[in-house]
């Protein structure tokens, strides 16, 4: 149980609560037994379907009942339904799970059922060719219908729902994973630039939202790979954004982690020196900033590893050593790490 306050109840209060619960408990157990018995006898009826609706409203974590519900649809309902009816049923399923998610935004099974619904939406049937002689009219080609029309409409709605979910909890990883699923599988692909704009909006409303920074790193990687964005140009703009965030709150871990991604593992000498200088300036303003010091050590170590012949390595090693010792007192929880890094550094470059 997450975030449920412990309340100490008297034996009398507990007994009263139990009594109040008894009726609820009995009807829950009865419903469960009925459903599991129907499932065993492969009852694919509409009545059984309605009972699963009732039970899942009380307990959306009952995965066996979600499975049974899908079995009923696949074996009972769909075979006797038209494509239009199937589409209507799946729309109503999506609607039910939207309501459930508002109450239980972190239940795996609800998200899972949504994916199944989306993937199960049928193609729109093409209109049958008109019988010309009977109609006594000139031959006309029936207008073609987009076979993926229903799917497109449903997937587009999903984007709206997932944004509502992320408005309610901008760190919900179920919602972010679902969002990436929609983005990658949707029949109406959304431009990467739109997703980048979405992460900008999320970050601007809260710099601490690492989920949005993470998504941004993935979107940029895709844009660079596809050539949709120029690597150098977009990185420069990102460094401006990150620097601004660092100055706004130098203790915000999210920004520093993203900065590390932006610098990458193989930065040029010029880039490293520029970023080291910018962080040093911030440290001068905020002399106790753990993240300034920790990042300086990281980037200075990269200097040594990648550009040793181009820098005064003795001086850089000395800087790292001094910073690591200071970190041990500024951030004592991780003192053993800083001690180990210093030991390794001295062993590697002595």
């Amino acid at each position, binding site marked *: 149980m997450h975030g449920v306050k412990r309340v100490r109840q008297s034996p009398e209060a507990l007994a009263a609560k139990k009594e109040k619960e008894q009726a609820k408990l009995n009807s829950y157990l009865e419903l469960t037994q009925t459903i599991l018995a129907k499932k065993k006898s492969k009852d694919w009826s509409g009545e059984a379907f309605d009972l699963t609706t009732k039970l899942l409203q009380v307990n959306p974590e009952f995965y*066996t009942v979600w499975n049974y519900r899908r079995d009923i649809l696949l074996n009972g309902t769909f075979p006797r339904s038209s494509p239009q009816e199937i589409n209507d049923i799946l729309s109503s399923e999506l609607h039910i799970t939207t309501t459930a998610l508002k109450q239980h935004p972190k239940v795996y099974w609800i998200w899972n059922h949504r994916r199944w619904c989306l993937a199960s939406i049928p193609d729109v049937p093409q209109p049958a060719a008109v019988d010309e002689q009977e109609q006594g009219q000139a031959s006309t080609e029936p207008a073609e219908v987009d076979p993926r029309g229903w799917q497109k409409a449903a997937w587009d709605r999903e984007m709206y729902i997932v944004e509502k979910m992320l408005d309610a909890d901008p760190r919900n990883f179920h919602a972010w994973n679902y969002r990436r699923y929609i983005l990658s599988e949707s029949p109406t692909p959304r431009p990467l630039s739109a997703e980048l704009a979405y992460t900008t909006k999320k970050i601007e409303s809260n710099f601490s939202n690492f989920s949005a920074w993470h998504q941004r790193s993935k979107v940029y990687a895709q844009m660079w790979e596809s050539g949709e964005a120029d690597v150098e140009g977009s990185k420069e703009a990102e460094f401006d954004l990150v620097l601004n965030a660092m100055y706004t709150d130098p203790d915000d871990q999210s920004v520093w982690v993203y900065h590390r991604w932006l610098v990458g593992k193989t930065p040029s000498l010029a880039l490293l020196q520029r970023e080291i200088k910018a962080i040093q300036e911030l440290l001068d303003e905020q002399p106790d900033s753990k993240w300034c010091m920790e990042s300086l050590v990281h980037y200075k170590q990269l200097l040594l590893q990648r550009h040793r012949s181009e820098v005064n390595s003795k001086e850089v090693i000395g800087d790292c050593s001094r910073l690591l010792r200071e970190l041990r007192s500024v951030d004592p*929880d991780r003192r053993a790490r800083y001690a180990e890094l210093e030991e390794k550094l001295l062993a590697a470059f002595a």
Partner: protein
Amino acid sequence: MASASSPQQTLLIPRHVQYIKDLGQSSNELGYHLTSHLRMNAIYWGLTALCMMGHKDALDREDLISYVKSCWDEEAGGFGAHRDHDAHLLSTLSAVQILVILDALDEIDVDRVVSFILSLQHPSGVFAGDRYGETDTRLLYTAVNALSLLGRLSDLDIEKTAGYIVKCRNFDGGFGAVMGAESHAGQVFVCCAALAIMDKLDEVDEDSLAWWLAERQLPNGGLNGRPEKLEDVCYSFWVLSALAILEKVDWIDAEKLTAFILSAQDIEGGGIADRPGDEVDVFHTIFGIAGLSILGYPGLGDLDPVYCMPAELIESLGLRKRWRGLPRRAAP
């Protein structure tokens, strides 16, 4: 101020043992039935916690075995979370773990369980939880762990399986639930442990990951699961197990974390909660105790962080991988 001997700073083993024993006796409560989809997992959590506290026999062996067998799903060939529930990977792993702890694997049809598990692997290497199920690295670990405990890891395509984990690795060294997902301590545990079981730890970017894990500790001593999130006792295990696999448990402040976990105990009713003052449950009880074991808390048994089972048992099965917790401290 609490003194060193105050109940809030000591692990109240008898209370927790009683709490776990009582869990099975609450079948007249609604909450008990609303969590039946977790029953098999809960028994594994409770039993493992009891093993750590040296009270393995607090639950009746025969009762447990017959319960596990009653959850067998004949159609699918796996175990459900409760009687008449569908087979699922999560409950199947718990069932296997319970039976291994009780030395009762001979009670089940291992070949069918192995086929059930292998049938859930997708071409990408990831595993689904059941026939309709979602796929993620958590379920992949579940499959790898179970196959290893059943002595059938050789039936698995290791390259393909490890290959999926590698695709979920992020620049911060962490791992996400699926490709493209944000690093999360829970996923870091499952991915590191699965790679450890498959002898593929060379795929881990150890420097970045150990840094990211060490940064999970908050000023109050507790650990969070992602940057800029709140602490929670269950992360004590997810983060510490991964640190133990990387042999870097000393990169966080053990004393502060120990105090945080102990402060989340219910000193009257037993059990451990996600945070101090919250309602306890068996999930946070095992992961709090597991964390304390890795931190060398006196009087607890050693926990194998890769399998989340008693270390001695894993060693006796010849499955022990490289890991290191803090040395066990002597009782004060």
